[in-house]
């Protein structure tokens, strides 16, 4: 009996914004340091690695492109989980988490898009193809921007959180459909000669830098995420304090 209740208490401890802030204060320097170390190793490896016999040194773009693309999806998953937290458990920190993640997701998706087209130009001879993958990522980018716009349009943070939680979940079930439909569309419209990224298996020489870079990017995301959450918590705390200040001023008068 004691164990689950302990677990629940742990969870709700973490859930308390004040505790969370304390936790962030302890954790974030370590996370940041880890991120920097991983990036140092990952960047070194990615520039020290041999050139691909087919793609030349453009293969190095992969080391930023693939992790960014991975993050763009992981970030949306984090937001979908937070949205569940908002709607099902009505957890205040879940609101904060979803709101803080949106700009980060948009940022990493943008990186994935830019590096993707920079990779595409030398490889395919064009900046952009309406490939299923690229198009889906572009749609994802639009959805991040839509979510940010929605959050900015609402002044009450609790209601904004609920509205965006619903939108996030609707988007979450829709993204696979969008992906599938774009793939279908692609087979109709595109000559089959366009290069596929998932062709041959990756050589271990490329795998290691890629993995380390992916972990580094993920750590970067979590560092930024908890810091952005901290900012958001402070923002709400300030809003509450200001309202109290206004109210007590009214009482004094």
């Amino acid at each position, binding site marked *: 009996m004691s164990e689950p209740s302990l677990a629940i208490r742990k969870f709700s401890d973490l859930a308390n914004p004040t505790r969370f802030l304390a936790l962030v204060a302890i954790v974030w320097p370590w996370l940041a340091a880890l991120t920097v170390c991983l990036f140092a190793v990952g960047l070194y490896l990615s520039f020290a690695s041999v050139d691909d016999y087919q793609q030349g040194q*453009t293969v190095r*773009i992969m080391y930023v*492109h693939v992790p960014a693309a991975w993050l763009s999806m992981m970030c949306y998953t984090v937001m979908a989980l937070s949205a569940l937290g908002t709607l099902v458990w009505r957890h205040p920190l879940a609101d904060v988490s979803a709101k803080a993640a949106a700009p980060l997701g948009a*940022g990493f998706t943008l990186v994935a898009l830019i590096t993707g087209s920079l*990779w595409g130009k030398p490889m395919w001879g064009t900046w952009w193809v309406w490939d299923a993958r690229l198009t889906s990522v572009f749609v994802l980018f639009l959805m991040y921007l839509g979510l940010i716009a929605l959050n900015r349009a609402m002044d009450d943070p609790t209601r904004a959180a609920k509205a965006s939680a619903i939108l996030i979940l609707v988007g979450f079930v829709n993204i696979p459909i969008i992906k599938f439909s774009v793939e279908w569309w692609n087979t109709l419209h595109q000559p089959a000669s366009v290069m596929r990224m998932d062709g041959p298996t990756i050589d271990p020489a490329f795998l290691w830098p890629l993995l380390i870079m992916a972990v580094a990017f993920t750590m*970067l995301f979590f560092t930024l995420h908890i810091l952005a959450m901290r900012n958001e918590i402070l923002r709400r705390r*300030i809003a509450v*304090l200001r309202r109290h200040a206004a109210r007590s001023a009214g009482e004094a008068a």
Partner: protein
Amino acid sequence: MSHAFYVTASYIAAFAVVFGLVLWVWLDHRARHRELARLEAAGIRRRSARQENAG
């Protein structure tokens, strides 16, 4: 254009965006801190903080 150009460009772009995100988080934090400090200077604090000071 050489392939090195594309590699450099994509690393620069990635760095720029990530730097932008870091900057956003950092500036936001500074702004929030300043606001909190101003509120505190005006004598407005959270109740829990007040109790801690009193106790």
